[in-house]
């Protein structure tokens, strides 16, 4: 039983929570240049940590750790995706930083992906934005050799 729990705890997984595709615009004489950016923060699964402690530590200590983990988990209520993180503002600057990828501001076709890269106890809480930056086509001049 112990080995089964340990095996389950040491698995990893990529989970998608939300996908959103935005309007896509195409203009004549413009090319779509794809860009991608990502921010992430470490999440912690306290319940899983408690379970692991129960398996690894002796019975009394394991139970105490599990009780603490349960109390912490009680304070994290409400709808959420993924595991709780310590910095809830990690994705606030994402909209601003899109302009570093596309300074012209001709941004279209934004796809927002919210995903979790899950590992034992910890997880990567990821926000990924993909899109197109519209750039003017440059005309090639064919110079003839005289």
């Amino acid at each position, binding site marked *: 039983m112990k080995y089964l729990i340990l095996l389950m705890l040491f*698995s*990893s*997984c*990529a*989970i*998608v*929570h*939300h*996908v*959103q*595709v*935005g*309007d*896509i*615009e*195409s203009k*004549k004489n413009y090319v*779509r240049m*794809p860009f991608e950016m990502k921010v992430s923060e470490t999440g912690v699964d306290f319940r899983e940590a408690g379970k692991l402690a129960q398996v690894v530590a002796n019975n009394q200590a394991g139970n105490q750790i599990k009780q603490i983990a349960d109390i912490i988990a009680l304070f994290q209520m409400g709808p959420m995706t993924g595991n709780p993180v310590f910095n809830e503002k990690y994705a606030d600057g994402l909209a601003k930083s899109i302009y570093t990828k596309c300074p012209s501001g001709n941004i279209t*076709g934004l*796809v927002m*992906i919210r*995903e979790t890269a899950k590992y034992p106890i910890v997880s990567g809480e990821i926000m990924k934005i*993909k*899109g*197109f930056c519209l750039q003017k086509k440059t005309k090639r001049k064919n110079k003839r050799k005289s």
Partner: protein
Amino acid sequence: MKVLILISMLFTVSCTHLSSVSQTSIPAKKGKVVKAEVDNNIFFFFNFSNSYLDAINEKLALQCENGKISGILTKHESITYFPIIYHKTRVTAQGYCNE
């Protein structure tokens, strides 16, 4: 025999879960409908990458080269074909192309 029937029933049930939905502004003048779909097969809950999502934007954009796609409805579904053994996640985006 009863147990066998019960187990076979359990493993042949399937269901679909809707994980998320989003909708962008719908245009007054609706053009032709364009649709793109990407999916990912998952066996025994093992899924190590979500890169299958990367193609959806390009797939949709290619269907409306000289216009604007708006009113995009995005659906993210999880489908269970055989519990525990085989799942599929599917993302569908459907919108209107105004050229």
